[in-house]
């Protein structure tokens, strides 16, 4: 089961997370809902925004456990019905440099 992390040169702003400039960066938890996340691969950019389920998948991909199962639980769907779509989207995020496969 592949795991993912954010690339080192990815700038990330998770809107409305209080103190994001002052405290250590944290991945928004489930209580943060599906807030938008702004991303830019440095130095070239561009500035991108992931909203709704896109943001949710990007966050969940960085957590332990089975990504598809976790996402399915959060969106109240059957894992088999969303597996292909979620995996395809994560591959697109990797291709754009917005996620990186974690070794090990």
């Amino acid at each position, binding site marked *: 089961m592949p795991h993912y992390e*954010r690339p080192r*040169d*990815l*700038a*990330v*702003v998770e*809107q409305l997370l209080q*103190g*994001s*400039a*002052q*405290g*250590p*960066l944290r991945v928004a938890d489930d209580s943060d809902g599906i807030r938008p996340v*702004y991303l*830019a691969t*440095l*130095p*070239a*950019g*561009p*500035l*991108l*925004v*992931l*909203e709704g389920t*896109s943001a949710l998948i990007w966050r969940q991909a960085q957590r332990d456990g089975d990504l598809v199962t976790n996402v399915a639980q959060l969106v109240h769907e059957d894992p088999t019905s969303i597996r292909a779509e979620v995996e395809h989207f994560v591959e*697109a*995020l990797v291709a*754009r440099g917005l996620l990186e496969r974690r070794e090990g």
Partner: protein
Amino acid sequence: MVATAVDVPPRVRLEMGHAHLQWVAEHQGTRLLHIKGVALDKRLSWPGREGTDADVLVPASDADGYVAALQRYGWVLGSDFKNNSSFEHAAALRHLDFGWADVHRYFPGFSTAPDKAFDRLWRDHGQIFIAGRLCAVPSLPAQALVLLLHAGRSPGAANAKQDVERSWDSADEDLRHDVLALVEELDAHVGFASALGDLDAYHDRPDYELWRVASRGGSRLEEWRARIKAAPTRRAALTLVLRALLVNVEHLAMVRSRPPTRRDIVMEFFARLGRAVRDEWRTRRRRRQVREAA
């Protein structure tokens, strides 16, 4: 997934701007301190204090190289160090994605040599994450002093009053003690006095006029006189005299959205001359009216 150029909250763009400035500094090998705005310690901030541009401070000796590096990574020079303000302390740059940035090569008010002042601030700097990137920020007392010196340039403004309130009036004894120690170390007495309304106590200092014009207003001619008086050497003063009416080519390019032609520059030279004379007359008339009304 949407590439976006609109509807990005200003704070998001500011944080991204800081992260980009930091990335370039790391790849350029330049030490960078993030100051004011979203980099400001929460204890000194207040709602609405975020500002409109990303402010950073670099060692003066690295400043030109850093600005050149930024230009290689998509930042466009809006105003260079010499033309941005009478203190000649910052260059303004704009990036299509990451907004505006002010790169400071020193902070107005520190009379110590700029590189030495930077080294002093670097010595006890802290670190925070901005847009997920680790960024260096000055210590709390240094941040308070930076705000006070900034307020000293416009002590009547609403923002300046709030900054003075947070950084000084309501500061505890420890913070005040540390700020005063830094004022001594960095010879920041004139700007500090300006922030606290005591500028005239330093009327015999060469940079007094510069602070007086910056904080209380004055004509362009008065501003140039003050800059020349504050120049550290006669050679620097002469350079300023020769530069006083030269056209700010970067600004002209930005206003016209194209590189200015030779004719544009000549026209602007005479327009500047006319504006300087009109400005001086207006300032004198205003003062006469105030005197007569008193």
